[in-house]
C-alpha cells in the first residue's frame, strides 16, 4: 500500500483515500500518478524554444489552469510573459491568456531589432506590453452582471538581451535571478501584495505569509484596475545563471532563491548538461511534489554573459 502526504496538512494519507483522515481535505492524484504532459487542455503545457522554455501545470487541487505563459526567442534575445488569472474573478483563465498573448505581441517584434536596446528602451517596451495586456483583459469583460469581479490577472514580463535583463510586473508573479553560486541568487521583483506591504513595515515574512489575506494582491490587470503601470527591474548580469519567471504556485513552496537555484539545477544549465525545458520541469515537479495547491507556471532562460564583452566592473577592479 502506498502512503502519500496530504497536500494540505502533510499528514500521511492512504493512496486510495479520496479525503485526508486528518484534515478532511480532498485528495487528488499522488505525484507518481500525476499524468504526463497533456497538451491542448491547458492542464499541462510545455513550450521549448531551446534558449527559453516554459512549463505550466494546473497543479493538484485546482480543476482548471488559470495561469498562462507566452515566450519568444531570437538568438540570445528572449521575451517571456507569465500571467496568473485571479481565481476569485470572472473567467480568470481567459484573462491570463489574453494578457499573455497581448503582451508578447508587443515584445516579440523587438527581438528582431538589431539595434542595441538600452534598459530604457526595454522598460518602455514592457510598459507598452503591459498596457496592451491591460486593454486586452478589459476588452473581455467589464461588469459580468453577477457577483463576480471582472476578469483579472497578474503579469510578469521580461526581456533578456545578452546580459541585460529587464522585467516589469503587476501583482505577485515573480522574476528571480538564479546562480550556481550559493548566496548569489535573488528575487528581482517586488510583489504587489498585502504580504509585501506588511513586510515593508517590518513584519516577519514567515508570520505574514501565515495570515489568511497575505496573498491578496494590491495591483492587477482588469477592467477595475486603477494602476497597472509595471514596476520595472533592470539588471546587468556578470556571471552565468538563469532568469526564472514564475507564478506563486511555485514560490509559495520555496522561500529562498538559493533553493530554487538548486531545484532548477543551474550548475547543469551553466554546463549545458541540462536544457531549459528540463530545468522548468524540475521546478514544476518540485511544486507538485510539495503539494501543488495552486496552478504552477515557470519559464527558464539561461543567461550567459558574453566573455568577450568587456565587463566594466572587473575592469575597474583591476
Amino acid at each position, binding site marked *: 500500500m502506498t502512503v502519500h502526504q496530504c497536500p494540505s496538512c502533510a499528514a500521511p494519507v492512504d493512496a486510495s483515500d479520496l479525503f485526508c483522515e486528518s484534515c478532511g481535505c480532498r485528495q487528488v492524484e499522488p505525484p507518481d500518478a500525476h499524468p504526463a504532459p497533456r497538451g491542448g487542455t491547458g492542464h499541462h503545457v510545455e513550450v521549448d524554444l531551446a534558449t527559453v522554455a516554459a512549463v505550466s501545470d494546473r497543479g493538484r487541487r485546482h480543476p482548471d489552469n488559470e495561469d498562462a505563459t507566452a515566450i519568444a526567442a531570437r538568438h540570445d534575445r528572449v521575451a517571456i510573459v507569465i500571467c496568473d488569472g485571479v481565481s476569485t474573478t470572472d473567467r480568470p483563465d481567459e484573462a491570463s491568456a489574453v494578457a499573455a498573448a497581448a503582451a508578447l505581441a508587443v515584445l516579440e517584434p523587438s527581438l528582431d531589432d538589431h539595434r542595441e536596446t*538600452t*534598459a530604457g528602451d526595454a522598460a518602455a517596451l514592457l510598459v507598452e506590453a503591459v498596457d496592451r495586456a491591460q486593454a486586452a483583459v478589459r476588452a473581455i469583460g467589464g461588469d459580468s452582471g453577477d457577483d463576480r469581479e471582472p476578469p483579472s490577472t497578474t503579469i510578469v514580463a521580461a526581456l533578456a538581451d545578452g546580459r541585460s535583463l529587464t522585467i516589469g510586473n503587476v501583482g505577485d508573479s515573480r522574476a528571480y*535571478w538564479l546562480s550556481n553560486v550559493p548566496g548569489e541568487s535573488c528575487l528581482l521583483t517586488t510583489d504587489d501584495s498585502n504580504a509585501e506591504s506588511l513586510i*515593508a513595515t*517590518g513584519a516577519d515574512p514567515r508570520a505574514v505569509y501565515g495570515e489568511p489575506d497575505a496573498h491578496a494582491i494590491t495591483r492587477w490587470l482588469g477592467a477595475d484596475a486603477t494602476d497597472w503601470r509595471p514596476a520595472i527591474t533592470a*539588471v546587468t548580469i556578470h556571471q552565468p545563471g538563469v532568469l526564472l519567471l514564475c507564478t506563486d504556485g511555485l514560490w509559495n513552496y520555496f522561500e529562498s532563491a538559493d533553493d530554487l537555484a538548486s531545484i532548477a539545477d543551474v550548475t547543469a544549465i551553466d554546463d549545458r548538461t541540462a536544457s531549459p525545458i528540463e530545468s522548468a520541469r524540475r521546478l514544476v515537479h518540485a511544486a507538485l511534489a510539495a503539494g501543488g495547491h495552486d496552478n504552477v507556471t515557470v519559464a527558464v532562460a539561461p543567461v550567459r554573459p558574453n566573455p568577450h564583452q568587456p565587463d566594466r566592473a572587473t575592469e575597474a577592479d583591476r
Partner: protein
Amino acid sequence: MTTFTMECFQNEYLAEGATEADAIVRITATQAPEAAADPAVARTEIIMLDVSGSMGLLKLRKARKAAEAAIDCLDEGVRFALIAGNHTATRLYPSIPGLALAVASPVTRQEAKYALARTRAGGGTAIGTWINLANGLIHDQPGINHAILLTDGDNASEEPEDLAAAVDAASGVFQCDCRGVGTDWRVDELRSISTALMGTVDVVAQPDDLAADFESIMRHSMGRRVASVNVRLWTPAGARVGFVKQVAPDILDLSQARIEISELVGDYATGAWGNESRDYHVSIAVPPGAVDEEMLAGRITLRVDDQDAAQERIRVQWTDDMALSTRINRQVAHYTGQAELADAIQVGLQALDAGDLDVATDKLGRAVRLADESDNRETAELLAKVVDVEPATGKVTVKQKVETVDLFTLDTRSTRTKRVSR
C-alpha cells in the same frame, strides 16, 4: 595634478610662564586645469535613503528624485550602490548579490533609477544598520569613498550604542554627508555621524529642495581628486597636543581621530580634497620656558598620498615684553571666537529645548555678539530668526514663537565659520 600649499599663522611670543602655543594652519589645494579630464581617481559613492514608514509616499517621491539627481552627477566609471534603510538595511542597487557595487554608465544609472522607483515606505529607523551595510560594500575599495545619508526621523529602532559602534567602524572608511528632511529628526544624532565620518550635516526643510541639495553634494564630491591627506604633527617630549580642529569652512574637531605614528608624532586624517582651502587650529601645551628661551613647539607636515608635501613649524619664544606677548594673532583670535560662537549656539539651543530660558538667553546673546564681532553675517541672520535684539541696549530675548525649522537650521549650521583675510 593637485598641488598643496601650507601657511602658518601664530604669535610666537609667549608671556613668561605661559604654556599654550596656538597656530592656525591654512592648507590650500590647487588643481591644474587639466585635472578635470584626468580619469585616474578611483572612487565609490553610496546613497543611503530612509524608506521608513514616516517618509510616506510624498517624501519618498522627493527622496527618489534627489537620489536620481545624485546618480546623474556620478562620473562614468565611479563605483556606486544604493541602500534603502528602515529598521534594517537593504541594498537596493545593484540588487544581484554577486556584485557589491555597480560601475556608473548610462545603463547602470538607468537600472538604479528603476530600483529607486520600486522603493516603498514602511518600518522604523536603525541608521547603524545602513552604515554597516555601506561599510561592508565600501571598506576594501581604494581611492575616495563617500556617502550621502538621508533620514527624516530619529534612530528609534536600535540602541544608541549600535549606531555609535557602526559609526566607529566606518570612521576612516568613508566620508558621509548627512541630511535630515523635515524637523522630526535629531540634530545631535546626525551631527555625531557627520562629525565622525568627516562630512556635513544640514536640514532640508522642504522635500522639494532635496534634489538640488543632493546634486550639489554629489558635484562637490566628484570635484575631490585627492583621496588621502593627513596632517602629521610632531610635538617635543614634554609637550601635549591640546587639540587639532578644522576651523574653516566649518568646525570639525579631529583631536579624537589621532593616529599615533610614534610617541611624538600623530597623524590627523582630513579626508578627500578638491580645489579648496581649509584652516586648522592647532593648540599645543608646552612646558613653561624662561624669558628669551626659544622652543620648537610643533612641526606640521602635510602628507598627501603618504608623501610629504609641505612643512611648517610652530615656534615659541618666551618674552617679558608685554607688547609682544599680548599681541594676539588675528587668525587665532578669530577662530577661537568662531569656535566659541558654535558652542554658544549649540549649548543655547539645548537649554532652550530643555526649557532653561535663562541659560538659553545668555548663550544665544553671547552668540549674537560673537557673530556680530566676527562679521559672521550668515550665522547672525540665522540667529535673528530665533532671538530678538533690542537695538538700543543690545539686550537679547528669545522670540515668543520660533519656527522649528529655524532652530534646526541654526543648529546644523552653527559650525560654519567665517574666514578672515590675512
